[in-house]
Structure formats: structure tokens, C-alpha cells
């Protein structure tokens, strides 16, 4: 019998306590941020879309190898001895034409693992976080500064250079076995 009445009492009492709390909250300011109108300030370490500063990129492929989801694709062509690629802002000499530098943000998991190994600090996270697209393909960003024709040219140049080199080598190497057969 005592339990019966204590049940009634605790039922009513705890309900009233709860109602008091929610009533207090009626007059508390809301915590909502009205997103498209007011945007929260992102902390400086916030990890969002990647950016590659191609002026500094030396094409070392380290970011691509660090990426756990393989969303970075890099292709490079060796520069000819005659080419002058300039230097990075830190004074490193560049030796490779970067003919392909694609980051697929549909795959990217924003883990920042690619940022740490970069020797020239040319790949980094920016503050842009609104870049949704209607087509999945348009999330595949290309950072290459060379035009397609330039890329073709560099590739051709290098192929020619290689061919020449091979020919030279062959020319240099060819007489030897010939001499040997003579002996």
C-alpha cells in the first residue's frame, strides 16, 4: 500500500521536476547557428578541401603514396637538361614536369596524411568546405598548370630525348660487340 502511494507521488513529482527543467529552457537562448546566413569561424587547423600550389610542387609523389584511399594521381615527365623549371619558394630545384596532378574529392577522406610528408609544403588544407557538385566527375580536381598541348610537347620532348639517348648508347655500345666478333 505504501508502495502504491509512493509510486503515485514519485510519478507526479518527477514529472513536475522534468517540466520545470524544460520550462526553464523555454527562455534560454538557442544554440542554433543559422548556417547559410551566418557561418561559424573555422579554427585555423580545420581540415577541408586540399589545395596544391603547383609553383612549389616538385612532383615527388610522396603525398600520393601517403594517401590511404589513393585519391591523388600524379604523373611526371623528366625534364630535359636544357629545360629550366625554376625553383620552389624554398629554393629547391625542380627536375620534373608534373603532367598530371588530380585529386578526387569524392574519394578524399580529409585525413591530412598527404600534407605532412610534403617536402615543399605545397599541398595543404584550405578553408573551403562548400564545394558540392551535381556530377561526381566534377569533384575530380586537376591542379596541373601546363596546358594539354604543353604536356604533349614535354612528353614528346622527353621521348625524343630518350630515343636519342638510347640511340647514342646503342651507337656507343654497338661497335664493341662488333669488335669482339672481329677478334
Amino acid at each position, binding site marked *: 500500500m505504501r508502495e502504491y502511494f509512493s*509510486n503515485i507521488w*514519485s*510519478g507526479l*513529482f*518527477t*514529472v513536475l*521536476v*522534468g517540466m520545470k*527543467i*524544460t520550462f526553464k*529552457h523555454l527562455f534560454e537562448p538557442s*544554440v542554433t547557428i543559422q548556417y547559410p546566413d551566418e557561418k561559424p569561424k573555422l*579554427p585555423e*587547423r*580545420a*581540415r577541408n578541401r586540399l589545395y596544391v600550389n603547383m609553383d612549389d610542387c616538385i612532383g615527388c609523389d610522396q603525398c600520393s603514396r*601517403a*594517401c*590511404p584511399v589513393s585519391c591523388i594521381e600524379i604523373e611526371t615527365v623528366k625534364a630535359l637538361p636544357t629545360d629550366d623549371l625554376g625553383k620552389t619558394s624554398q629554393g629547391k630545384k625542380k627536375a620534373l614536369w608534373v603532367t598530371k596532378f588530380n585529386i578526387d574529392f569524392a574519394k578524399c*577522406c*580529409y*585525413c*591530412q*596524411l598527404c600534407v*605532412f610528408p610534403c617536402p615543399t609544403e605545397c599541398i595543404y*588544407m584550405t578553408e573551403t568546405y562548400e564545394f558540392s557538385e551535381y556530377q561526381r566527375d566534377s569533384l575530380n580536381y586537376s591542379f596541373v598548370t601546363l596546358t594539354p598541348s604543353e604536356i604533349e610537347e614535354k612528353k614528346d620532348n622527353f621521348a625524343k630525348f630518350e630515343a636519342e639517348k638510347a640511340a647514342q648508347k646503342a651507337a656507343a655500345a654497338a661497335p664493341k660487340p662488333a669488335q669482339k666478333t672481329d677478334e
Partner: protein
Amino acid sequence: MSDYSNLKTEEMVLNMGPQHPSTHGVLRLEIKLDGELIVEVKPHVGYLHRCFEKHCEAMTYPQIVPYVDRMDYLASMSNELGYAIAVERLMGIQVPERVEYIRVIMAELQRIASHMVALGTYGLDIGAFTPFLYLFADRERILSIFEETCGARLLYNYIWVGGLSHDLHPDFIRKAKEFVTYFRPKITELNNLLSYNKIFIERTANVGILPIETAINYGMTGPNLRASGLKWDLRRDDPYSIYDKFEFDIPVGKGWVGTLGDCWDRYFVRVLEMEQSLNILDQALAQIPDGDVTSAIPKRIKPAERQIYTRVENPRGELGYFIVSKGGLQPHRVKVRPPSFISLGLMNELCKGHLVADVIAILGSIDIVLGEVDR
């Protein structure tokens, strides 16, 4: 008198999930019902299977860290801590003291954040919507603290093998201390609003009772095991990191309002654990030493041929990593012992003989994260 002898009764199969408001993700429960009484519950998992263990075989050790985040996405820091400790023990790395302190702080903040979701969604399951949003608003504070330090709110990639990706943000200590003082009264508010509510107690007390022998036999760990009355906490019983330096209690279930090991005990043990985590945070934030956090990160992680099983106390229980190395840059095998996976195996045992509404109460009380169940 009418003749009821030709009336047929049959068991009904109710398919709960994978799309259902309170299966906590994509879990499918095949429930055999007799009226509203449960005869059998068959959980079907695997809808969120992301081949974690297969992926690990093709990843180098540091690359696994982002994947580890995505298992129990409500407790990423704790997952990372476990993984980092496992690989460090595998290679015999000693990490600086500051790193250990930061890791403990992060793990405890994460524990609070994770329990907030657990308790909030539990209230939601029972039908109380408001505590859920209060807790989520407070959880945002923790996430903002995390974001400032490591740049992400949910999937941190912060605790690395041998160290941390960044040092603490200069504001971190102040904000964390603020949070600790802010959050203490909020626990009382939660208790008054939800925990001690008569309806809530009625719904959860004496429901889904888990005796201690069954709990151990089914491999329950963490708060679920402690709620059944066993004082078993890996932070004490199998110490890792620097938990032996801190003073804290291990709350165990006492059958406060019902039977020992019922849903309310499991719920309330989590509430008490949040208080203990605040205690640990108090101490750790006061004692944190200076130092470098990246000095012990190895250039190349290539353990010799050996195997190890390491476990840590996650918010959901014992998270274990069984790592087998064959000497390469990639692990030969990473097997995870996900606490939610093991806990979910108990559903049938707990639910038998209860009502449909209790399935939700029980499922919420064992607190699973489907990302971890399926990996």
C-alpha cells in the same frame, strides 16, 4: 457461447530494420512475436560492412589510422588510442609523457562525448526527445575543442603511432577546463530530467536483466559488464597509457531501482562514468607536462615478425586489436575485437519474453554503433 476452438493463433515475424527509427543505424532484427511478446530475436548485421580488415592488409601502418576512426565513429579518439598502443607495443616504442597525457585527455573527453550520444539516443528510444538535444548541444562543445586541436570534428586522425599529429592548440587547456566546470551541473540536470523520471524508470528497470555469469560468458565488457556488478575496467585491470596515475572510481551497477544488471543500471553506470571521466580530466589537465609530441614518431614503421593482442577500455567496452606482422610495411592481419559486435550477440538472450517496446529499450541500453559491428 461461441466456439473459439477453430481460432488459429500463430507467431508473427516482425522485421525491424534496416530502416527503422531506432535500430541505431542499419541493423536488421528479425523478431518472432507471439502477440506483442518476443519469442526470438535474430539480428542480421553486415549492412555497413566496409572490409576494414581486408583494407588493412593493403595499408601501411600509419594509413590504417583514418580507417580506425571510421569503425566506432562516436569514439574515434579511443579507437586511435587503442591502435596506436597496439603498434607501439608491437615495435617497443616509448612515447613521451606529454603525449600520454594528451591521449588520456582526448580519450576521456571522447568517452564523455560518446556517452552523451548513448544516453541521449537512449532517451530518444524511450520517447524523450528533449534530453537528446541538450546532450547533443553539449557534445558540440567537445567536438569544437577537438576541432581546434586536430582540425576535424568526428574523424580525427590525431593519435598516431608514436605520437600525435599536432600539439595541443594554445586554447585547449583553458577550454577543456571550462568544459569540465560547465558540464558537472549538466549531469544533474540530465538526471532530473530523464534518469529519475518515473516513466523512464518504469520503462527500463527490471527490463533486459543480465546476470553476471551470462555477461562474462557472452563476452560483455565495459559499462554493460560493470552494470551487472563486476568491477572490471581495463584502465585499472590491464593498465595502459598512464591511467595508473589518476584517481578515479569504477562505477558498478547496484540494482538501484530494479534488479542488478537491468537496462536502468546500464544507463546509469554510463552517467556515473561521465562523472569519473570529468575527475580524470581535472587531474590530467592540472598535471600535463611540457614536451614535444612528435619526437617519438618513427620514420618507418616496420615491425618484426610477431603478433600482439592489445585492448583498451572504449566507451562501449573492450576494444582489442590483434595485429600479426610478417615483417613488412603492411600488417599481415589486423583483427579487431569490436565491443558492439560482441554485445549484439546477446540480443536474443536479453529480449526473450519481453515486449516489442522492450527490444528498443534493450538495444539502446547495450549501446551499439553499427559502424563498429560491421567494420
